[in-house]
């Protein structure tokens, strides 16, 4: 199915979870803030939330330093 990640189209397997997507992108789940269809989702939902066709995700991947 097609989804939109940070404004770009991306083909992924069906019934992927947010956690599954992060693993595919090689991003640590504790370092991100994610908007799924313009709604911020909590970390506890990463394993549960299923991504659907045409869903829009904004993934902000934080790096350390300050």
């Amino acid at each position, binding site marked *: 199915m097609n989804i939109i990640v940070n404004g770009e189209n991306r083909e992924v397997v069906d019934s992927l979870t947010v956690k599954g997507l992060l693993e595919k992108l090689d991003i*640590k789940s*504790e*370092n*991100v*803030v*994610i*908007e799924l269809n*313009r709604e*911020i989702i*909590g*970390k506890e939902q990463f394993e549960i939330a299923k991504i659907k066709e045409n869903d829009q995700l*904004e993934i*902000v*991947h*934080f*790096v*350390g*330093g*300050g």
Partner: protein
Amino acid sequence: MINITVNEKNFRFEKGQTLLDVKKAVKSEADVVIINGFQTDNNIEVNDGDSIVLIKKGEIPSRDEMEFLMAARHTPGIHRMLKKSSAAIAGLGGLGSNIAINLARMGVGKLKIIDFDVVEPSNLNRQQYFIHQIGKKKVDALHETLHQINPYLEYDCENVYITEDKVEKIFSDYQVVLEAFDKAENKAMLIGKFMRIFPEKCIIGASGVAGIYDTKTLGVRKLGENAYIVGDMENEARPGRGLMSTRVAVAAGIQSNLAVRYLTGGL
């Protein structure tokens, strides 16, 4: 006749009078002349509604007058708005210590500063502390400095390590939060949690501020309605890529300016 203010007091002058006429009449010994936030040596005509500040260098004004004079170079109206506003700064390292000083100089009326650590020597390459403050709690050391810069603000200091369960209580009384942590997971935790529990409030974070790379690469990414992330989003602090004063201070300046724009309704 025209109505003007000089050092925040109301005066009436004949139309066609100049700055020099006003100075002669009100404070002839003044050697700094500021009109509507702009310092000038030109003897221009004054107009109805002008705000003029006359300062004698070296003179210590009364406490009442001091706060007003400190903001004399502000764009008119900005100080009044900021004085009624509030901001909280989470983490008092290179980003947070610079942000706190910026917002104190801007005159944000109520400032909260939060950190759990003490000042140590490796902080001094970028953080706004002094050698004599080594070993002090950062909240106490920075509070001393802020008080020296602007004693007319309300400061709240909290020495605590911010975890998810504490976010609501720590920030509930503040309009805008500046995320200035060091670790990526703490940044993500605070911004994610804050956006879910306070969707109507503003949070301004940072990510990717290490090194001495071109400051043009420091951008602002907007997330949702009220969250902003400053940085290049990739240059993390790691072995071989340090955190240094100049680039961290630029990022802190961008965060501070976003906060001020938000608090004055311009974001």
